[in-house]
């Protein structure tokens, strides 16, 4: 069966520091991968999605970037964090034959101080 991992689970970072969040999927090949952000009391906002290695689509312009160095690895990064980057970051995956259905990881809670 497929599983999705995210780490770290929780992160507290100062403003202006860099960020790297990692997501990996097991048990499937060539998944679509997604990064979402959930701000306090709000819904989910799609940040990036990827249909293959090195293929990244950005949905919202911001100081975040994403990379997909391996088939089942998706990384969210920032060079300099802002206070507004605080939130709950969720990674999700879907398979090519049923790409409408997404499955979510446990999330990373980021607090920027």
């Amino acid at each position: 069966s497929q599983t999705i991992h995210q780490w770290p689970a929780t992160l507290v970072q100062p403003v202006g520091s860099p960020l790297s969040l990692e997501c990996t999927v097991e048990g499937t090949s060539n998944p679509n991968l997604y990064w979402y952000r959930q701000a306090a009391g709000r819904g989910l906002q799609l940040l990036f999605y990827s249909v293959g290695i090195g293929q990244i689509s950005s949905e919202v312009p911001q100081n975040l970037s994403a990379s997909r160095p391996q088939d089942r690895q998706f990384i969210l990064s920032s060079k300099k964090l802002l206070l507004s980057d605080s939130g709950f970051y969720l990674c999700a995956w879907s398979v090519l034959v049923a790409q409408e259905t997404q499955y979510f990881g446990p999330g990373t809670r980021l607090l920027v101080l």
Partner: protein
Amino acid sequence: AQSVTQLDSQVPVFEEAPVELRCNYSSSVSVYLFWYVQYPNQGLQLLLKYLSGSTLVKGINGFEAEFNKSQTSFHLRKPSVHISDTAEYFCAVTPTGFQKLVFGTGTRLLVSP
């Protein structure tokens, strides 16, 4: 573009009572519809989905939803709730043939004894 409206931000209910969480969507094309549940500090779990066929969809944990195309609604129901159903519930939509979900802002279900 698609949009999702969850009119109720919070729904309080007593244990063993029935509940309905409302979801309305807007789209000029055919869509797939989803309900996800999020327990505190966790990722999203897929409850149920409508892709085609019967408009009454049954999901996990005793939940069901009915797709009403004329009213552009996809309300979630459960005949008898438990304390453990306390969580945030998200409705989501994607155009058929696409893989990007649009989420509502969520409804917090509060079940009390």
